[in-house]
């Protein structure tokens, strides 16, 4: 077994050496370097395309998915070897994908054979980019209150309604979407459908955030007709799938938006001043130290949960806990960076501020969404209290 793994490591190392292009072994310089794939994706760097094509062909964008659906078919141990070899050469992720992080795992669990064969390989190769149609104007934290109507028209479903906070819907090719198929009940009247965004009647409108960026959209469905086979799972059985997918989403959200190129300590040293090896502002120093400890504690906890999962423990219920802790951590980090950088972090655009300064400002503003997107901190604390601690609303 160990010998097999060592052989796999040697093979992997040789393959990566030959196939990972030089520019894909340099650190990403910002969110712009993230490759999301899809029908209309424009690669800024031809080597990024090459890297995605090669990794996708091997199934290594989704290493542990079955090879029958385009995945790498690797065991958990082999995947660890692959990840450590990728890390060793500083390889960039070939693909950022809601398809891989969220949709794929639930398709593997709930979809029929045809659906898996149709959608999973395209996700692996980065050919189709997915977006998530969950929240609605009237259904945010109370997601199960969603009203987007899906009617059975005999040979097709007819969808009417509006979604909001659909991440990158304006760039997405397909949408996995929660719809109401029974208005007489709440949770039991929801179904999970897949919608091609080029279908007649689908319209998207980007939403501008306080950071100036527009990662989210409003998405409108007006008499959108989709084939019957685009429903996943059973009719009115969508809530279970929705919750499972949220768990994957919460596990994967890790503080979008912060300017990770700059360390808060370096920033403080530069702008606050150092005397005798320590930051002059002792109060800020103590708070940065406390933050650094929480950061370490968080990283160690993720490592511990991974180890416990490997040993067969069920750690899925911890997703909400990590979501809360991760969001808080990233927001604290951004606040400390802005405080440390002083007025250098109060710029918006133009020559008067460096690109890093502006990234710090905008990253801080973007981080305010961390405790809202993917389930608010309050909703996730509810989940921890109820499912982990067993505190029920009424007894």
């Amino acid at each position, binding site marked *: 077994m160990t010998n097999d793994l060592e052989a796999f490591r040697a093979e992997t190392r040789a393959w990566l050496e030959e196939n990972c292009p030089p520019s894909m072994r340099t650190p990403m310089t910002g969110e712009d370097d993230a490759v999301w794939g899809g029908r209309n994706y424009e690669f800024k760097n031809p080597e990024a395309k090459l890297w995605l094509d090669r990794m996708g062909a091997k199934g290594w964008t989704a290493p542990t998915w079955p090879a029958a659906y385009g995945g790498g078919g690797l065991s958990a141990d082999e995947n660890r070897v692959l990840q450590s070899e990728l890390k060793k050469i500083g390889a960039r992720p070939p693909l950022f994908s809601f398809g891989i992080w969220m949709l794929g795992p639930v398709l593997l669990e709930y979809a029929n054979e045809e659906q898996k064969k149709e959608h999973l390989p395209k996700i692996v190769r980065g050919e189709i980019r997915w977006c998530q149609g969950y929240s609605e104007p009237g259904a945010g934290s109370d997601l199960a209150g969603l009203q987007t109507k899906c009617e059975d028209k005999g040979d097709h479903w007819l969808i009417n309604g509006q979604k909001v906070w659909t991440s990158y819907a304006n760039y997405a090719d397909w949408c996995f979407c929660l719809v109401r198929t029974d208005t007489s009940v709440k949770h039991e009247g929801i179904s999970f459908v897949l919608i091609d965004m080029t279908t007649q009647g689908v319209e998207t409108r980007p939403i501008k955030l306080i950071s100036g960026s527009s990662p989210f959209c409003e998405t409108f469905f007006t008499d959108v007709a989709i084939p019957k086979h685009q429903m996943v799972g059973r009719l009115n059985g969508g809530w279970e799938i929705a919750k499972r997918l949220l768990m994957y989403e919460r596990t994967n959200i890790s503080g979008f938006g912060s300017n990770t190129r700059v360390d808060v300590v370096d920033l403080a040293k530069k702008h606050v001043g*150092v005397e005798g090896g320590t930051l002059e502002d002792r109060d800020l120093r103590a708070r940065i130290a406390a933050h650094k*400890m929480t950061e370490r504690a968080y990283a160690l*906890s993720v490592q511990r949960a991974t180890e416990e999962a490997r040993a067969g423990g069920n750690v899925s219920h911890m997703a909400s806990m990590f979501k809360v802790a991760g969001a808080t951590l990233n927001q604290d980090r951004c606040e400390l960076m802005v405080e440390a950088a002083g007025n250098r972090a109060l710029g918006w655009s133009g020559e008067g501020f460096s690109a890093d300064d502006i990234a710090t400002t905008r990253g801080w503003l973007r981080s305010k969404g961390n405790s809202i997107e993917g389930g608010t901190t309050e909703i996730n*604390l509810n989940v921890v*209290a109820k499912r*982990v601690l067993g505190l029920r609303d009424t007894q």
Partner: protein
Amino acid sequence: MTFTLNDDQRMLKDTARDFFREQAPVTRLRKQRDEKKNGRDPDLWREIAGLGLAGVIIPEEFGGAGLGYVALGAVLEESGRTLVASPLHSSALAGASALLLAGTDAQKQEWLPKIASGEVVATFAIDEGAHHAPGKSKLKFEGGKLTGAKQYVADGHIADLIIVAGADALYLVKADAAGLKRRELVTADSRGAADMKFEGTPAEKMNGGADTIDAILDRARIGLAAEMVGSASEAFEITSEYLKTRRQFGQVIGGFQALQHRAAKLFTDLELTRSCVLAALDAVDRNANDIAEYASLAKARASETVHLASNEMVQLHGGIGMTDVHDAGLYLKRARATEALYGGASFHRDRYASLLGF
């Protein structure tokens, strides 16, 4: 690095857990206190040592189990759960660590077997003022004799052997040495401690300097943090159970979101701290080169967590939480004593920042 216990460690933890739950539940501490024992319970210590728990980190050649700090941490965590009043952390952890790191061969031969068997209770005397300040010792050593003073030495009133840290040297002092004056302290946590004066007290020099003192302290901090995680966990679990049973307004109070969120936040904090302590114990056993960072991380986080957990235990129990008849007060008092010992959150945040270079 690993966070999971192996079979030996797991077995030891179970043994400790069963024993403490049955023979040293919180009622035993309460009884000791009510009988004004101030931490003296030699029968209990004999039984603890009889199970091999006083020699967990001591190598087999010196009569111990040689199981390491992860194993001892597991035992200490269990002892923290029921607030076991025994010199486990001062003797089996701090005292044994000091001899292992700074003892001459002869000193190890003489003392380690006795510490492992529980026959001798050792302690580590470090602080000289109201706060932890290991580098600021005014202790003097001339012609084999010590002059100076130590304050609030944990289990100092029952120790047979005192390992005394100067600014950059370590000394062994026997409790019955001439010129040693001990004043027993009656402490809020009912465990007792002692102030000590050395007035030309005969002492034996040990190996090592300031770095060795730090290394000993770091092991003591990490082990104590394990005890603190145990206390915080138990305080949290008792409180969580109370939320599920106490009824007001026609429902259990655990149904109120304000309380659910406080419980969920405390749980999250506790889990993050537990990871730090487990990693720190493992770092000692691996003899990692960043034990100091781990020690300050573990001790600062454990201090904050047990502080919060003990305060929440009082508040969320409402009226009963502020009465002496409830255990919340005992967890609260012990929490503050462990927070202060070997440096609290503020001390270790400062040290962590220095270690990280700012």
